[in-house]
């Protein structure tokens, strides 16, 4: 009887509480302010930072109120598509570059060009060209870039010293950090004890992390107009053969089965080198306690040595009722003080502003990675990924062939790439909507 009474009391408490919040149209939004809804993804720590930034913005802009709501990263895209398709999208959203062209093509984003022209403090030249390039579609500015940055190589200094290898950063300064050197390093670090791999030199990154290796051999994915696949050309085949050989010939990178479930992650100390964005830094700083590490440029291939760059966009919904206010907010998110906090202190990603990237605070960190100029150099020469509105589709087709190659079911990269090219060309030739 007592239990039932308590249960009843507890439930009434819940109901009253929940009903109160659920009856407000937009909880937390003061009626005398212009409200801007902002949707973002991120893990709890990132969201905490986001919340602090918004609180700061709301304090500094008493006429506005930004309301953040967060969506789990893995479901963000689906939620956003539902909202865009039904015209219920929030004023400001984050969009992953992978999805940007196909959404831009459907005219879902507010054209920022005029807002940018009217805003006298906004100068495109303050930003890295790569950041501006990604945000534009046919000359119109559709978003402000929150640059992820270029891929660089993280390496385990302790393992390198133990294997008596010269620091790859030093090698790269001398221009000797080549694919061959990289392969040699990977082989030297790899340790097999009693038939069981203990350490690996390198872990092949997921798509598209390995793209610079294909470029390095002079290979490419799509033609300049992004309408034809070029993977059956010799450079691309050599690139994929090099990658597959790291696993199956040189045995210095784990097979998919060996590497599954984070058995060989960089932070476990069981891997010599990996390719990643700057965004990995906060995690590594937190978890890595028992070895030294830093970053160096990607090795240089026989034909070229460029890495790739990719960002995410801050966009406004086409249907927004508050374009001016929303513009002020995304300008704040890409302003110098904000970028200083996010990228110089937390190092969540690479800054999109040059002034931040070349600032003293950014270039002289107090914790690893110390060779931070590597990220800045990477951006300077980096290429964009061949992202078009069919990206998801042709990447899925490519990945199933690459699966065969890196799982060792197909040892000849030429066979796999010719098959991939055939499938991708078929997709690119089809009506995009059928």
């Amino acid at each position, binding site marked *: 009887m007592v239990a039932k009474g308590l249960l009843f009391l507890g439930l009434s408490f819940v109901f009253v509480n929940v009903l109160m919040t659920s009856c407000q149209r937009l909880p937390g939004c003061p009626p005398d302010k212009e409200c801007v809804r902002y949707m973002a993804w991120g893990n709890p720590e990132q969201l905490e930072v986001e919340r602090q930034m918004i609180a700061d913005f709301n304090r500094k802009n008493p006429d506005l109120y930004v309301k953040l709501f967060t969506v789990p990263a893995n479901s963000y895209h689906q939620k956003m598509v539902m909202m865009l398709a039904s015209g219920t999208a929030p004023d400001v959203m984050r969009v992953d570059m992978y999805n940007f062209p196909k959404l831009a093509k459907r005219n879902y984003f507010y054209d920022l060009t005029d807002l940018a022209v009217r805003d006298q403090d906004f100068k495109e030249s303050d930003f890295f060209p790569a950041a501006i390039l990604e945000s534009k579609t046919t000359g119109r500015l559709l978003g402000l870039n929150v640059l992820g940055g270029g891929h660089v190589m993280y390496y385990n200094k302790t393992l390198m010293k133990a294997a008596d290898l010269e620091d790859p950063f030093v090698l790269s300064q001398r221009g000797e950090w080549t694919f061959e050197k990289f392969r040699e390093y990977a082989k030297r670090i790899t340790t097999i004890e009693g038939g069981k791999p203990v350490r690996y030199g390198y872990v092949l990154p997921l798509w598209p992390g390995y793209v610079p290796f294909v470029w390095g051999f002079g290979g490419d994915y799509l033609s300049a107009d992004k309408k034809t696949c070029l993977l059956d050309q010799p450079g691309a085949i050599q690139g994929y053969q090099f990658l597959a050989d790291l696993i199956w010939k040189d045995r210095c990178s784990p097979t998919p*089965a060996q590497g599954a479930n984070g058995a060989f992650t960089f932070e476990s100390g069981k891997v010599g080198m990996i390719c990643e964005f700057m965004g990995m830094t906060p995690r590594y700083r937190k978890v890595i306690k028992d070895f030294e590490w830093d970053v160096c440029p990607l090795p240089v291939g026989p034909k070229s040595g460029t890495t790739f760059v990719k960002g995410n966009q801050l966009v406004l919904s086409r249907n927004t009722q508050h374009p001016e206010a929303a513009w002020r907010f995304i300008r704040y998110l890409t302003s110098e003080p904000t970028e200083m906090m996010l990228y110089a202190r937390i190092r969540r990603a690479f800054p999109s502003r040059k002034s931040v990237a070349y600032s003293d605070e950014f270039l002289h960190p107090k914790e690893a990675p110390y060779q931070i100029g590597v990220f800045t150099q990477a951006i300077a020469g980096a290429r964009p990924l061949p992202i078009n509105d069919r990206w998801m589709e042709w990447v899925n087709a490519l990945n199933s062939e690459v699966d065969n190659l890196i799982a060792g079911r197909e040892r000849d990269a030429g066979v796999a790439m010719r098959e991939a090219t055939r499938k991708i060309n078929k997709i690119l030739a089809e009506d995009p909507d059928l």
Partner: protein
Amino acid sequence: MKKSAHVGYAFILPWVFGFLILTLGPMLTSLYLSFHKYDLASIEFIGGENYRRLFYEDPLFWKSLRITVTYALFSVPLGISASLGIALLLNTPVKGIPLFRTFFYLPSLVPAVASAVLWQWMFNADNGILNLVLKTFGFGAPQWLQDEKWTMPAFILMSLWGAGGGRMIIFLAGLQGISPTYYEAAILDGAGGWKQFKNITLPLLSPVVFFNLVLGVIGSFQVFTQAYVMTNGGPNNASLFYALYLFRNAFEYFKLGKASAMAWVLFAILLALTGIQFLISKRWVHYEGEAK
């Protein structure tokens, strides 16, 4: 005894109401879209073109269908037998049975996010608990989720782990509903355990078996979450289940017309399979109180 038809309508009214407002319209909309080219921005009537292309020009459609049918063919019969076996086991008057039931039911309670990660670890080729057990008994160690030949068995195995879940509970509820007087009478007649099962348990449980069969088939054709979270269709599309391919077409490629056509093909398949099951059910499903 005549029963008023109006009263029958009144009882099912809540569902009819919900169906008319929330379900019928969206179903018809998707049927309409399946005859159109629709990319969320523009719409164009193209007749049966979506269907024609699925059948004649899309190898992945056939592959995903084949994968899904294979999965259903194994996971439904194996899963139902396993669930029934477990339910019989958990229906025995042994001390601590509520605790045992909970243990069997536990894997179904672990949220999908957590269980997807756990299953990836269990299927790990080198350190996974499954292969550790297989190795101790001297079997080989397949690379479950990385080897396209073993991906399907891995998914079927994983579905069997759910045998202690919802389906088992339904069987258990069905077993609880069988009056012990039947068994008492059978024991007086000298019937053994197997005979009791065959002549009493199975016939009286047949409505529930039928329910699990129909729902099992429908559910197995719509497997999505595990494939999406664990393997995302790989390796080499070995786990590209039908619903996953449909999802990709709808939300990643924005081919909503094609996705709708896929949905209605699946609908037709399931309607046919369910219809056949209902026809056959007249021979083996036994209701105590059918509407007269």
